[in-house]
């Protein structure tokens, strides 16, 4: 049997690779095998490399949009597909859906539940407070007083400021409204 690469010398190195059930065999002479580094156990896509068989996978999708680019750094979607990394922090918003499809396979979850830097924690707390105040106003307006009490308590504990002068047990707006009718 002749070497698949040089086609002149007798092959004596036989390389078999099975990728998802597909068997690829390559027969090489000793010289070609050395030249191609077949002795290197780390090179896994060897068969493809050696004979340049463009195989399976790794075909960029033909459909799909246009190549969005990140407004902050100019990184493109096709670049992300090619190297699997992003261009800048803003890319995570630019390519959010592409990133999300990858995350499922990589990690335990898709939301961060660990350490929060102080600046982000402050910002997050501000946002939360604002939303709670909004909900509180709505609850009062709709006369859902139990909910209003709960929201007020949460606001108080979150803002970590001393509670307002009003005594805390009775809800602020509730007494009049819920008082039994004469």
């Amino acid at each position, binding site marked *: 049997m002749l070497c698949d690469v040089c086609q002149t010398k007798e092959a004596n190195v036989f390389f078999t690779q099975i990728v998802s059930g597909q068997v690829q065999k390559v027969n090489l002479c000793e010289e070609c095998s050395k030249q191609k580094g077949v002795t290197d156990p780390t090179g896994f896509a060897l068969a493809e490399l050696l004979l340049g068989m463009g195989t399976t996978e790794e075909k960029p999708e033909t459909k799909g949009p246009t190549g969005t680019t990140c407004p902050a750094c100019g990184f493109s979607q096709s670049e992300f597909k090619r190297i699997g990394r992003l261009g800048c922090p803003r890319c995570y918003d630019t390519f959010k859906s592409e990133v999300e499809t990858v995350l499922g396979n990589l990690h335990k979850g898709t*939301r961060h539940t660990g*350490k929060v830097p102080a600046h982000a924690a402050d910002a997050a707390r501000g946002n939360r407070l604002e939303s709670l105040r909004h909900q509180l106003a709505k609850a009062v307006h709709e006369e859902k007083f139990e909910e209003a009490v709960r929201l007020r308590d949460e606001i108080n504990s979150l803002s970590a400021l001393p509670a307002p002068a009003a005594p805390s047990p009775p809800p602020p707006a509730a007494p009049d409204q819920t008082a039994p009718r004469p």
Partner: protein
Amino acid sequence: MMRFSTLVRQPAAWMLPEGPHADIVISTRIRLARNLADRPFPGWAKKEERIASLNDLQPGVEGLADMADGFSADLTKLDPLQKQVLVERHLISREQAAKGPGSAAVINRAQNLSIMINEEDHLRMQAILPGFDLGRAYQMLDAVDTRLEATLPFAYHNEFGYLTACPTNLGTGLRASAMMHLPGLVLSEQINQVIHSANRIGLAVRGIYGEGTEALAHLFQVSNQNTLGEPEPEIISRLEKVIRQIIQREHDARQKLLQTNPTKVRDHLGRAYGVLRHAHTIETKEALNFLSMLRLGQDLALLNPGNRLLIDHLLVEIQPAHLQLAAKRKLSPEDRDTLRAELLRLHLRHLPEPESTPPTPPGETES
């Protein structure tokens, strides 16, 4: 700041035979990846942008109290040999060693904290301690991170957490790992099974030098793969649990080998001893594997106790860059092999022979 020559005169902290389970866990490491919010990641940034990020980061990093009297250098100011020495000490990554302008390394005096600027991320910070000590390493690095973020605007996303160049590090940016010496599991051919079961629960086990069962010196790195969706303490405790099991299995494998095949163990050790004491030329690979056997012999009390420090040092000192640095001249690979053998003969000249009679297990005297 400390000079390079001062740094290399002292062993890195992790090379000392200290810390919990130091017989099997040589070192533990925590790495955090962080990036500046308003700059492109190093791999996409242009040279000027990389230098701008470096200028943003370097003063803050060098100014850390932890880095007082430490070592700091732009990668362009180090020659290839110096970079390789830092790689062999696990103080910078191979990738970082290949970086050009805009990249730097800052290392503390004890060499248990090192911060790479403009590696794959703007900051790759690592704490590396001897023995099995992940909790302490994390505490140490977490404190450094908190101090830095007081002045540096790290990229953080409400959903994705800390943003990294590669989504594989997203969220916590945390990679926790242990370097383990597992000759028992290799000799008893259980290592592949261990690797597979670790992989199944999202942990990676790799040879430190070389791959798979070819791992030189029977040294393996066990690390987490997932960084997003779990808080840091959970990631670490999951890894700790597995490392504890691997330690136990390694102990069991060693005892079993000693009981069922003491001749095999003694033969490995005896050959290692013979070659290391008497060879006049030896390659890195062979030296690493034989030193590993001495280390095992020591842990099984077949060799005089008290030599682990020496053996662990030699595991680093016989590597190409360290040898070359000590020789103070350019060496061909052949010169290196000769010098390596010389170094080993010199340092091991007082090492007594391994015990030659197998100790009889209690209650199993021959009738």
